[in-house]
């Protein structure tokens, strides 16, 4: 049996398809079919099976998205009245425009809120995690392992179990129903700290830090110039992880927020959906709004997948 994918795996471990546009792959494929013998590639039968299985899986993952795209072009009554997997009297731009302008453009506001919660939250979470992880990895002090273990336990506690008491607590502090109510808990990422510690321990050599100290650099300066730079791959992962986490979080804003001006997008959409029986066009807006909110994230997912690699592995190696 002559197999293997090593061909597709350049020495640095980057998959071939990651590197260039699809055209390149196609060229290669053709060339392959021509003169390079099948010796290094799996037999045709295997490839057909593989691709068929992958295609079936892709159908599964893409069908709902396809449905969403089709449905976003329909009126509310067509949404209920026509076959879901095909177009009927499509007015995509018209409907999207209505989604964006309904209720003085509240949708846009929700979108910006989501972006703010996720962007600011993830950035702050990354910096806090970096500093904490770095400290836990690179300094020896009493109680270090104790702190690390408590933080680790934090990874294992469901965020939603905390949201409820946190809400009661924030209510007492007068923080409920403010941007801060969603932002503050979002910047705490025990998983980020865990990842940063593991990564810093491996990627930031003590000798380098010593050298910098001997050169007279302060600890803060060493961290911000050396530490952060060396930890960049892990930081990107923490940022993305936290960004998606905050973007997708429903329970916390649901519990914390009552003013719809503060809503992130998915809370806004559920409020539309909940109101739709009184105002049927909101079904249409919910679907259109869902598509609009999903598109940028999906593009982001596609573009950024490669960045999920490094850090995640680091985290999992020691898990």
């Amino acid at each position, binding site marked *: 049996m002559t*197999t*293997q*994918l*090593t*061909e597709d795996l350049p020495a640095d*471990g*980057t*998959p*071939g*398809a*990651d590197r260039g546009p699809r055209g390149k*792959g196609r060229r*290669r494929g053709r060339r392959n079919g021509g003169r390079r013998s099948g010796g290094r*590639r*799996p037999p045709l039968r295997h490839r057909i099976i593989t*691709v068929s299985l992958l295609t079936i*899986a892709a159908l599964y*993952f*893409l069908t*709902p*998205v396809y*449905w*969403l795209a089709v449905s976003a072009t329909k009126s509310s009554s067509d949404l209920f009245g026509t076959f*879901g997997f095909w177009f009927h009297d499509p007015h995509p731009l018209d409907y999207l425009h209505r989604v964006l302008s309904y209720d003085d453009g509240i949708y846009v506001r929700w979108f910006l809120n989501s972006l703010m919660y996720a962007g600011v939250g993830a950035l702050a979470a990354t910096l*806090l995690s970096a500093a*904490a992880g770095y*400290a*836990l990895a690179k300094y*020896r*002090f009493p109680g270090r392992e104790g702190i690390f273990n408590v*933080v680790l336990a*934090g990874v*294992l*506690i*469901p965020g*939603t*179990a905390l949201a*409820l008491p946190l809400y*009661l607590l924030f209510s007492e502090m007068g923080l409920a129903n403010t941007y801060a109510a969603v932002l503050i808990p979002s*910047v705490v990422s025990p998983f980020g*700290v865990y990842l940063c510690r593991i990564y810093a321990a491996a990627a930031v050599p003590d000798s380098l830090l010593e050298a910098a100290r001997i050169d007279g650099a302060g*600890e803060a300066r060493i961290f911000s110039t050396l530490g952060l730079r060396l930890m960049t791959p892990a930081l990107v992962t923490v940022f993305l992880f936290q960004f998606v986490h905050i973007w997708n979080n*429903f*329970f916390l804003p649901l519990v914390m927020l009552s003013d719809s001006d503060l809503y992130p997008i*998915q*809370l806004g*959409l*559920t409020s539309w959906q909940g109101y739709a029986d009184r105002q049927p066009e909101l079904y249409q807006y*919910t679907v259109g709004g*869902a598509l609009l*909110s999903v598109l940028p*994230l*999906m593009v*982001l*997912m596609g573009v950024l*997948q490669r960045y999920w*690699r490094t850090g*995640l*592995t680091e985290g*999992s190696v020691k898990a």
Partner: protein
Amino acid sequence: MKRPTRTEIRSARAAAGFLLPFLTLFLLCFIAPIGYALYESMLKVERTGALGLGGETTEVWAGFSNYAHALEDDRFTAGFGRVLLFGAVQIPLMIAFATALALLLEAASARWVGFFRTAFFLPYGVPGVIASILWGFLYVPGISPLVEMAHSVGWDVDFLGRSTVLWSIANIVTWQFTGYNMLVLIAQLKAVPGELYEAARIDGASAWQVARHIKLPLIRPALVLTTVFSLIGTLQLFAEPKVLKPLSNSIDSGYTPNLAAYNEAFTSNNQHIAAAEAVLLALVACVLSFGFLRLVGQRGKDGESR
């Protein structure tokens, strides 16, 4: 006793400086709520006066009666049983699915790998609520093209029925997270040095053997990680049943522990029982995840000679 040296003091001070911002917020957002929930869960309300009117409201010590109440409530315990069942079925399936996809992608020719991987990963960018709204449309009879298609081939399927709705929720979760888990696994696979495969290949191992005996053991840590995350995620199930509840006649207000706690706090307006339920949830989550980590940790030590 050795006195701490200047460098030691300096480093402790620096470490404190780096740790403090995180720890402060960690205390506020993790430790304090747990403490507060514990405290709230031990209280109950008493009212005096005729009909509870015109009198006074006091919060009095209740001991563990709220916990007893929560555990006696068959809705709440049924919800726990339900998510455990869910986890026992859905997590292995999803992880197996993700592993299969990761290995298949590794084995596929380069041509479409990028497309497939992106397609599988896309749903991760769809928040649970929106995924549920979306799938909700695909589940509702009369609207869903899936039901319509099934019906046309003589299969009357009810995605929202009593026996099916849990698995319909499982499908939503699987749809969302398989791609993510796959990516974690792929990341781990990529970290395996290519020579290892090469060596195995030269030794005459088949693709299946390489996958089974080399790749799977190597991605074990990633499997553990994804399983633990899935476990935590499962116990928190909330958005999916909450969104599907109005559409189905089979989801009650305590369908998952989280939904029960939420409804207890906001619909029934009883934060003391809600607090007790939240504490129980956190406790079970911790025990299960730690237990699982321990279990695989043990086996890892026994089984691997690394």
